[in-house]
């Protein structure tokens, strides 16, 4: 396995880490849009209060790692998705400050403003995550110089919008399951009735999106159907999807959370397997695609970065687990809460 493939895997792992961790707190934010009661809203916010910031770091680190390992992809995709990125950044800014701002002024309208900004600031990134994925899966208009030729409105094609809705439903599902771990009986029952609906909606969108992918990006399926790894991931994914309602109904919420995490990981895994060795296919000509070889940094940089990752990430994972264990269990509101 060469360094380029290693970094393909590592960037994939960072995206999985981001989607699993920030996925549930974005999902909680989306679900908070449907909550009326102030105390309930605060419980939603405080369930992710101590951890959301660390979760978002996965996005920052993923961005940094992409810049370091595949600078051509970083430059091409980010400048190509310019307006979409600016909207994403604006949402994330409002979302980040809403935690600190919301409870600092005792006014109903003030709270309502920040609740709305928190909700939309969670909703938009959830959709844009899928829209970006959808566009990359179907390929971008990239010419033989690696130059992006599309526009913002070109990103809003039907296929990518469906993938956007898929990621929204996925994060909402994941967030709802997370909330079952953090809430008491009364609030949990409300979430549970919602959870079943989200699961059905997600499954329907998933079926449509998979079917659509065959027509939109047939090249993705060229080689993978006789790839064992693809089938293993596919089976794990289906299994996790089916197990979610099973665990929920038998009140094994933590196992349900593990299942939805696995679901996210395997969905991203399947996308990665079908893209490999391309990072961004070109829909003008597949030969113009950005791949792990023509878009990568030098071997020395990849090697150095690998050492940094091998030293740093085990420590990160160790203390992240420690911090999650400290905040395990139901949310209790007190003076320090948001």
């Amino acid at each position, binding site marked *: 396995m060469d360094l380029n493939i290693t970094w393909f895997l590592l960037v994939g792992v960072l995206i999985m880490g981001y989607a699993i961790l920030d996925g549930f707190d974005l999902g909680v934010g989306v679900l908070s849009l449907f909550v009326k009661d102030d105390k309930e809203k605060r419980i939603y916010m405080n369930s992710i*209060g*101590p951890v959301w*910031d*660390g979760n*978002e*770091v996965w*996005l*920052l*680190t993923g*961005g*940094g*790692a*992409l*810049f*370091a*390992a595949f*600078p*051509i992809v*970083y*430059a*091409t*995709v*980010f*400048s190509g998705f*310019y*307006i979409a*990125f*600016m909207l994403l*950044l*604006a949402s*994330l*800014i*409002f979302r*980040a*400050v809403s*935690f*600190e*701002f919301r409870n*600092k*002024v005792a006014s109903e309208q003030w709270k309502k403003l920040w609740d709305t900004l928190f909700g939309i600031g969670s909703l938009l990134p959830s959709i844009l995550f899928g829209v970006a994925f959808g566009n990359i899966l179907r390929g971008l208009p990239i010419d033989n110089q690696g130059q*992006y*030729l599309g*526009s*913002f*409105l070109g990103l809003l094609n039907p296929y990518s919008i469906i993938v956007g809705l898929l990621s929204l439903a996925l994060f909402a599902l994941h967030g709802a399951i997370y909330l079952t771990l953090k809430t008491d009986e009364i609030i949990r029952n409300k979430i549970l009735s919602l959870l079943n609906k989200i699961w059905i909606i997600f499954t329907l969108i998933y079926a449509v999106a998979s079917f659509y992918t065959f027509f939109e990006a047939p090249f993705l399926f060229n080689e993978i159907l006789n790839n064992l790894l693809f089938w293993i991931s596919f089976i794990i994914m289906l299994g996790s999807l089916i197990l979610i309602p099973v665990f929920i109904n038998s009140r094994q919420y933590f196992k349900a959370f593990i299942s939805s995490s696995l679901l996210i990981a395997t969905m991203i895994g399947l996308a990665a397997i079908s893209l490999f060795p391309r990072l961004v296919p070109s829909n003008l000509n597949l030969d113009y695609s950005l791949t792990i070889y023509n878009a990568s*940094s*030098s071997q*020395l*940089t990849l090697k150095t*970065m690998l050492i*940094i990752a091998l030293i*740093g990430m085990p420590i*990160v994972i160790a*203390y*992240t687990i420690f*911090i999650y264990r*400290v*905040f395990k269990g139901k949310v209790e509101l007190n003076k*320090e*809460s948001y």
Partner: protein
Amino acid sequence: MRIHSSISTINKKNLKCLSQNGLFLLVLKILCGIKIDIKYKDNFIERNSIMDVVLLSRIQFALTIGFHFLFPPISIGLAWMLVIIESIGYKNKDEVYVILGKFFSKILALTFAVGVATGIVMEFQFGTNWAGYSKFVGDIFGAPLAAEGVFAFFLESGFLGLYLFGRNKVSKNVHLFSIYMVAIGSTISAFWIIVAVSWMQTPAGYIIANGKAQLTNFWAAVFNPSTVIRFLHTVDAALITGAFMVAGISSYLILKGKESDIAKKSMKIAVIFGLIVSLLELFPFGHESGREVAQEQPAKFAAIQGLYSTQTGAPMAVFAVPVMPPPELKAKVEVPRLLSWLAFGDFNAKVLGIDQFKKEDLPPLFITFVSYHNMVVLGMLFILLTLVGTYYLWKKKLWDNKFLLRIFVWAIPFPVIACELGWIAAEVGRQPWIVYNIMRTKDAASASVPAGDVIFSIILFALIYLFIGSLYLYIFVKEVKHGPEGNLAKEELK
């Protein structure tokens, strides 16, 4: 806009016509959809040179980094102040320091949140606006950004959550450990981002191959000639910022008689600590920083010092008004030979003036001179203030000196301003290069982003930052006025 004075004069006409076209076409684009969009893009490329996108991207970068950089020095400084406060409380088992810790941690949390929110923009902006640059230096520049994520962001954000919300959930040891990790994490973050910006100033450990910078020696790139001194200079500036923040807020509480017994404890720490770090900032950090610039970037040194002709035994301008053209210093107050000593440790050394450099290789002269000199003046003021403060503290008269306490309150924003000025002098002084002597800023922008898009994002961020900046100030003042939840508050509850 002053930041870009030299370029903006050249392009003022272009910019005006461009912004009208850009906005008009942007509205059209939203109203009429893709077809117009493609047409507009083609027209646009014909009508506007890439230079306009460069100028707009520079304005955007100046805006977003300028706003972002208000917050990290406060966060780093406050985190270390809290390390001191919490450590004393832990050692003496004194509840007063817990109250202080809780109080200042609210300010830290607020500042940190805005810092994080505006920092996300920075991580992605190289790709969105500076794709040319990102492709050219990606092999080197991405690594420190990724390292910052791995070694710093996770650490500070994870443990900040633990510090803020874990006071009653973890042992006292772990809680104290968590504020240490926040402070260390934010300082490591400063290190890696300074590695990245220092490499742009004094690149090392690379070769140019296939039209791109390629890494040849990681450690040489990390510890390039300006990294270490810039790191010490910047982090010490953050410590001064933290000290003045705590001193100013404590002074306010003492003046208002709000929990003043508690505030006196934090005031003492802040003034003494502030004196130490302010002195260190002058010598050795500021001094060494100047020497480094003189050696590595003589054109920048000449510009920030306002040395317009090459001289032996060069004087240092303490005060002057730079005018253009021709470049000239009016009403100047000079100290003879000081600049030669500052730069090379020899009163008779020869220092290159701007007459030695081609016009197209020089940074804007006005903005660099003015920002550098005002930073130095503020640095001296910090020493003076903390020195006087320490003297009165020693004489046990500080609490009665209302005038001095009031000055400390008003001085809260001064270190933040000094940080901004220092940053402007450093980064504008690097112009016209984005990577010193290797790549010019004008060649670095994104080729695929139309000017209208950049105008849209400038307006978007300007509005958001105005909004968030005002709310930050409003809540900051509110928190300070509310004061710590001390014994008085407890008694009131009873």
